[in-house]
């Protein structure tokens, strides 16, 4: 799948325009604040309906605009399709998703154009709270198995229902025994989520080790381990008896204390917490390698070419490694990168690509480079 064109209306500071894109690599250059990262964000948005910089959709609207719209023209095996996301400022949580002009449910929409993004905000994967890492896991699994989103939604719904029941039991409105059926449903849906996360963490870890070695990076003792909350990887009887043992405490708390909604993913270097050991530069490189591992897994398991978003290439310190990384990426992604320093880029051999200058929210004339 290739993104051939991008059109935006009222998206951040971007001028409403249609932009043609290169099937191999696109580098947006310009000084800070001109809008080059906004273009990457619009690409990510049309693919995932979300932003990689903010969780608040209101931030995406051009000042005073009451609606926004982003459309992509995608191509696969010579067939072109349009996909678009529309948002009203008044109800920014409701997204109108269209493929070829037809309304499409979220799970089908996001499976259309897979994208993997790296930006400074992603450092939260290592430094942030566990929910960042759960999201990272879930996005990775969903890109390989689109049906996972439905399983995850089901689990979260069960937790919500069960929490409401725990409070009702505490208030004496429902009998304690009415928890039995919800415990079985929780054990069933939770086991599906835990099994998928354990499997993904294992293949991700192996792939990461391989990539760090290939990149010849000095932090090579990095370990990624899935840390499940509760015995959800065990058999059903074990899960149920653990729920039973914790029942009184959970009724007291009024919510489900353990389960995949409390999972974590541990990053360790020589057995120590990576967020304490790694320098800022090393953290950046590690997150970048994690993203490459996701690219490799996606290519291997799905057999298609994902989009790769790489914000602020020159902010990475380790140029020789970045060079190896670019060579790695050339093998199998459609690249979208930004840079403030063209001279840094000129020292990297990115391969055939177009350079697009961005000034005041406006994309200028593209220059084709590295192609005869």
């Amino acid at each position: 799948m290739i993104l051939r064109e991008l059109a935006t209306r009222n998206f951040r500071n971007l001028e409403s325009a249609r932009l043609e894109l290169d099937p191999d690599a696109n580098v947006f250059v310009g000084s800070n604040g001109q809008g080059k990262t906004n273009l990457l964000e619009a690409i990510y948005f049309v693919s995932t309906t979300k932003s990689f910089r903010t969780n608040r959709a209101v931030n995406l609207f051009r000042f005073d605009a009451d609606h926004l719209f982003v459309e992509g023209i995608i191509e696969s095996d010579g067939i072109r399709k349009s996909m678009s996301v529309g948002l009203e400022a008044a109800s920014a949580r409701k997204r109108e998703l269209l493929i070829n002009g037809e309304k499409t449910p979220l799970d089908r929409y996001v499976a259309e154009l897979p994208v993997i993004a790296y930006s400074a905000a992603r450092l939260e994967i290592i430094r942030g709270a566990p929910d960042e890492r759960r999201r990272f896991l879930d996005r990775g699994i969903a890109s390989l198995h689109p049906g996972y989103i439905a399983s995850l939604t089901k689990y979260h719904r069960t937790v919500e229902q069960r929490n409401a029941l725990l409070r009702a039991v505490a208030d004496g409105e429902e009998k304690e025994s009415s928890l039995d059926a919800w415990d079985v449903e929780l054990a069933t849906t939770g086991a599906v989520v835990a099994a998928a996360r354990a499997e993904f963490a294992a293949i991700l870890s192996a792939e990461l080790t391989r990539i760090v070695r290939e990149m010849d990076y000095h932090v090579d003792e990095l370990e990624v381990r899935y840390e499940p909350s509760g015995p959800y990887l065990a058999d059903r009887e074990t899960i149920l008896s653990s729920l039973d043992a914790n029942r009184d405490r959970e009724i007291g708390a009024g919510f489900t204390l353990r389960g995949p909604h409390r999972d974590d993913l541990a990053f360790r270097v020589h057995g120590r917490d990576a967020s304490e050991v790694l320098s800022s530069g090393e953290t950046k490189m590690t997150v970048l390698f994690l993203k490459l591992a996701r690219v490799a897994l996606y290519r291997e398991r799905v057999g298609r070419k994902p989009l790769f978003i790489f914000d602020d290439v020159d902010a990475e310190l380790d140029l020789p490694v970045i060079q190896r990384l670019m060579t790695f990426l050339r093998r199998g992604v459609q690249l979208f990168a930004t840079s403030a320093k063209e001279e840094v880029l000129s020292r990297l051999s990115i391969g055939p690509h177009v350079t697009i200058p961005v000034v005041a929210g406006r994309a200028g004339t593209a220059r084709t480079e590295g192609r005869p």
Partner: protein
Amino acid sequence: MTAAPLANLINELSRLPGIGAKSASRLAYHLLKRPAVEAEALAHAILEVKEKIHRCGVCNNMTDVEPCSICSDARRDPSILCVVEEAFNIPTVEATRDFRGLYHVLLGSLSPLKGIGPDDIDVAGVVRRARSGSIREVILATNPNVEGETTALYVAQQLRGLEVRVTRLAFGLPVGGDLEYADQVTMAKALEGRREI
């Protein structure tokens, strides 16, 4: 400013499920344009349904006779009971023509978030009928979403210890789906592939 009687109609219509403010207003203006006899026919149909249709005393299905035409049909197999959430799920199962047993309508599904517990739906009715002795199998045909599945689990737990085979539909439906949208073929497969729970 909308005239009071018109505003009143729009308000009443917008309380119907699936009807938003815009559709309610469109329907009201449409009714206004049509001849009075049409409006009278509609009003009459609504009143008649309220007057003549009630819940079957045996199975909770909607009926104008007592018991309903399914419960009183001697050709049907009284040893199999199909449990559904709502009366409007019965036509979906009937459309397969594969099921010749009887029904029991639960009148909802368990949902602590909506304050609906086991006493708010008719699980007791299923247990009572299963205890009566003539039933060999109870098929739990609740929706394949979290609430429907948990309701099925709950009913199955209540039937434990009785000499009744308890089965659940095998769904090829998308997870979290709704029985209402199952086509004939999917529904027939779900019935055929039912498993004990």
